[in-house]
């Protein structure tokens, strides 16, 4: 028989074995009971992949309910990573996709590998045409991990239309990504890059939906686990009048140079009816990606002339000079002789009509825009007084329209000069009297000025929002008119200025803006431009007889020459559009249907669920 010592050793062996089993049992309890939640999460992450679907962005409507920006369904190609896949497995896929999409297979491979490393879905191509989408559909069966989804893409039904105001959608720059990451954005999302799209980004974006798919270790989709519906963004109702906007866009585009800006404001409340800047762009083109380069197929002129372009106002400033003079007590009947120039010391200040206007009073002075008359009027009023009116009209200050890139222009007068540490001379007063010198304004500022001239002194803070209807049920945001200043002038001064501006249109330099049946009052301007041809200005307001004016317009055609020739016709088109009149139509005739019938509603976005 065995010696006793071996029995003891057997017990030790058994002790070791049972101890090991106990350790394993404890470890099992740790994994499966204590840490079960953690590992369940890990397993859940393993097997499920979320494919995000961009939510329909809030729409933009004009004041009559026309859709200015909406959404359409579009195919997006998604790649789902697998487990343990290496470069060799991905190469054939990259080659095939490169062929189908016309992209560089090397770049695609980099994207695919990145997705594998991060274990997250990657967007390979967006906004695919249906033909490509169906060809790719067949690849799904060959290459695991390829998924096509349909999602909402921004669509601008009018294309080139208020493009600087509405803005466009684009991919985030690395800097923007750093800011937006914290706000719950994903790296492949697009954001509003400009104008209202950028301004209302938070309201418009909505909440993206997603489809949680069960995938196997190869990235093959097994089934759908969950469908998280998207929430559409909030709709924004604008003060814009699509017809006026279209008239501004087209008018400027067809003007002599095709460059410039036009702004229309409702003088009764400061609603912006139109804001156009040319050259413009088609925001839809920025959404489709160039097949060759993978970059947006169009470069864009980002510069918004209407708020960022500063020009001397030229003669369009003359009504303000007149208003200042009459408010101070000048007489409209006082006449000055215009020989074609004004002699100040040994300097000669020319009138734009070199042979002279002869004897000129207020009405003739504004009607024919006689510079010499305004030199005299200006000297009599004084630079400081004119500058006071500049300030009241808001020149030299931003209108605070809350669009990115707005410029303030430059105020010009003795006080401003004093601030800059320089003196003020009579020659400066002469230049100021005809809107030249260091005075610069934006077309938006001039539209606000025009509106104030039309409504006798109410300077509105211009705005483009009427209402925001929040998708989450918060009470609507409603924009109320905001008065930023009130011009202090006598009723007689207003009468004189307005009457003279009416004459400008009815028989003076602004004749080409005349609309029978409407009271149209305006002023042309030709801003001297040291670097090239003069800029053409025209400011105008119009209303039905006996009613307050319904539209105030400022048009600038860059290098357009004389304002009455190149800018006034653009303004006229806008006025016609505002009153619903066809060209050459009398305002007294019955009102026809609004031009530009509403486009057919776009196809509804298919509900998420197209992937099988």
């Amino acid at each position: 028989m065995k010696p006793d010592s071996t029995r003891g050793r057997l017990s030790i062996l058994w002790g070791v074995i049972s101890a090991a089993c106990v350790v394993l049992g404890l470890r099992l309890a740790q994994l499966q009971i204590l840490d079960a939640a953690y590992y369940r999460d890990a397993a859940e992450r393993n097997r499920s992949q979320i494919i995000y679907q961009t939510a329909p962005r809030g729409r933009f409507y004009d004041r009559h309910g026309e859709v200015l920006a909406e959404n359409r369904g579009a195919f997006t190609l998604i790649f789902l990573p697998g487990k343990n896949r290496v470069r060799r497995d991905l190469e054939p896929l990259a080659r095939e996709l490169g062929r189908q999409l016309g992209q560089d297979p090397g770049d695609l491979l980099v994207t695919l590998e990145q997705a594998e490393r991060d274990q997250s879905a990657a967007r390979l191509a967006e906004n695919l045409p249906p033909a490509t989408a169906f060809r790719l559909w067949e690849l799904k069966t060959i290459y695991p991990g390829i998924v096509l989804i349909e999602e909402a893409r921004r669509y601008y039904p009018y294309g080139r239309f208020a493009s600087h105001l509405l803005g466009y959608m684009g991919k985030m720059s690395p800097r923007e990504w750093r800011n937006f990451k914290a706000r719950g954005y994903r790296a492949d999302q697009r954001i509003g890059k400009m104008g209202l799209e950028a301004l209302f980004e938070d309201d418009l974006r909505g909440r993206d939906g997603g489809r949680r798919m069960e995938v196997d270790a190869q990235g093959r989709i097994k089934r759908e686990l969950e469908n998280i519906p998207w929430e559409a963004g909030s709709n924004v109702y604008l003060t814009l009048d699509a017809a006026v906007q279209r008239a501004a866009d087209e008018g400027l585009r067809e003007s002599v140079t095709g460059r410039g800006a036009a702004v229309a404001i409702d003088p009764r409340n400061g609603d912006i009816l139109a804001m156009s800047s040319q050259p413009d762009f088609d925001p839809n083109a920025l959404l489709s990606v160039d097949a060759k380069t993978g970059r947006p197929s169009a470069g864009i002129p980002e510069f918004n002339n209407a708020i960022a372009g500063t020009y001397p106002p030229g003669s369009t400033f003359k009504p303000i000079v007149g208003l200042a003079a009459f408010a101070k007590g000048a007489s409209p009947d006082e006449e000055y002789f215009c020989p074609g120039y004004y002699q100040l010391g040994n300097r000669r200040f020319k009138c734009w009509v070199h042979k002279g206007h002869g004897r000129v009073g207020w009405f003739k002075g504004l009607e024919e825009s006689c510079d010499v008359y305004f030199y005299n009027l200006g000297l009599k009023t004084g630079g400081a007084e004119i500058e006071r009116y500049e300030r009241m009209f808001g020149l030299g200050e931003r209108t605070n329209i809350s669009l990115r890139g707005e410029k303030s222009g430059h105020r010009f007068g003795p006080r401003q000069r004093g601030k800059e540490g320089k003196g003020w001379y009579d020659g400066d007063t002469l230049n100021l009297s005809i809107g030249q010198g260091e005075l610069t304004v934006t077309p938006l500022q001039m539209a606000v000025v025009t509106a104030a001239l039309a409504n006798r002194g109410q300077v509105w803070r211009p705005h483009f929002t009427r209402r925001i209807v929040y998708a989450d049920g918060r009470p609507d945001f409603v924009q109320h008119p905001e008065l930023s200043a009130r011009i202090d002038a006598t009723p007689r001064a207003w009468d004189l200025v307005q009457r003279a501006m009416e004459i400008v249109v009815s028989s003076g330099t602004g004749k080409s803006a005349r609309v029978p049946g409407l009271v149209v009052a305006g002023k042309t301007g030709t801003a001297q431009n040291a670097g090239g041809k003069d800029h053409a200005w025209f400011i105008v307001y119009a209303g039905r007889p006996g009613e307050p004016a319904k539209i105030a317009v400022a048009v600038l055609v860059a290098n357009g020459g004389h304002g009455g020739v190149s800018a006034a016709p653009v303004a006229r088109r806008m006025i016609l559009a505002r009153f619903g009149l066809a060209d050459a139509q009398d305002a007294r005739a019955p009102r026809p249907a609004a031009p530009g019938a509403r486009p057919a509603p776009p196809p509804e976005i298919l509900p998420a669920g197209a992937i099988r």
Partner: protein
Amino acid sequence: MSQARAQPGLSGRVDWTFVAAVLGLVTLGTIAMLSAASTTMFYQSILRKHFIALALGLSLFTLTLAFNYQIFQDQSKPLYAVAVALMASVLVLGRSARGHRAWLRLAGFSFQPAELARVLVVLVLADFLDRRARRVGEFPTLLAALAIAAPILALILKQPDFSTALTFLPTITGMLFCAGADMFQMLFVFGYGALALSVPLVVTFCQVRFPYSPPMSLPGLVLSASRFGWPLLAAMVLLAALSAAAWLAAAWLRLSARPLAFIAAPVIVSLAMLTGVAVNRSMKSYQRNRFVAFVAPRSDVQGAAYNVIQSRVAIGSGGLWGQGLFSGTQSQLGFLPERHTDFIFADIGEEMGFWGAGLVLGLYTLLFWRIVAAARQARDRYGYLVCCGLASMFAFVVVLNVGMCVGLMPVAGIPLPLISYGGSSLVVNLFSLGIVANVYARRYALL
């Protein structure tokens, strides 16, 4: 028992608890395999092979009961010859799969002889240690026992199948220990082995955790000493000096210590270091990756460590009640590798939860307990040693496999006995457990 006394049949002496544990494990294994293999391409073929092997194994289990186990002791020499011949023929005739030449084709079936050789080595060693019972405490006996296993081990390493070879060491250790070998000698021999093995582990650890360590820091010294060269020699000289100093200190303190220890210790340690460095140099990259995966599981998620992490996630996500058969996402969607073979325990953990995995672990513990009981009650020293060897072998393999699945042990490509899919493994394991049942049933020497 009354029936057994009246009619001294075999049935009354069979350890039914043991049989129940075996059948329970085989049943649970079959269920788990049905679920885990259901997503593989050869499901039908796997099922067919499994049930054929199961039938064969259970018949062998029963058949082994029919004759006296002592026949294995009588036929010890032929058995040893069979073992060596099998392993040699594998190298000559065998088929390669996954870089191992480990398979023999026999009448249409693939057969992995290393498993059988392991059991045969247990039988042969038991005979040897039984006959050397009086001199078991002598060092030559220890070396001779190792020498008996050495040729087969060498042939297995030649395949190369590092993992299977690894399972021999605790088996032999367990047998020597239970046979009553001298602890001091064993400490030296196995200390040498353990040290030699730990060198690659420590080196890999330093490489992974401190890749850019300066040369004079501790990891830097370890790395420079892991190559044949001056630093290694210096380390060995330092060891000798330390040992001499310790001996002088012991003499000065008038401590009674065996002088042999002060010579043997540095020699053994130096030899172990040399062997370790040699092993470290000859390690294949996939073998090193397993060490890396064990030492730093997060360093390379897509590579070797992937298996370890996915296995742990599978077990953990099973929770208390499991996700249900055929519904474990980790195994059914293919995230868990080797889910019906080496990592089947993870599948059980995921689909049957803590209760299922705990039941398997409990049944194994029961099994070990009954094997130890068989050893304790064996009527002769041979039966006792066979049971000790098999207990050590099964316990080690199970602990290694389960430990690997729960992330406590490095990844070793060894199956879970009685549960993993694998025909030859199942048949051989049932056969060897049949011997255990045989030893227990014949404990009173009446049959």
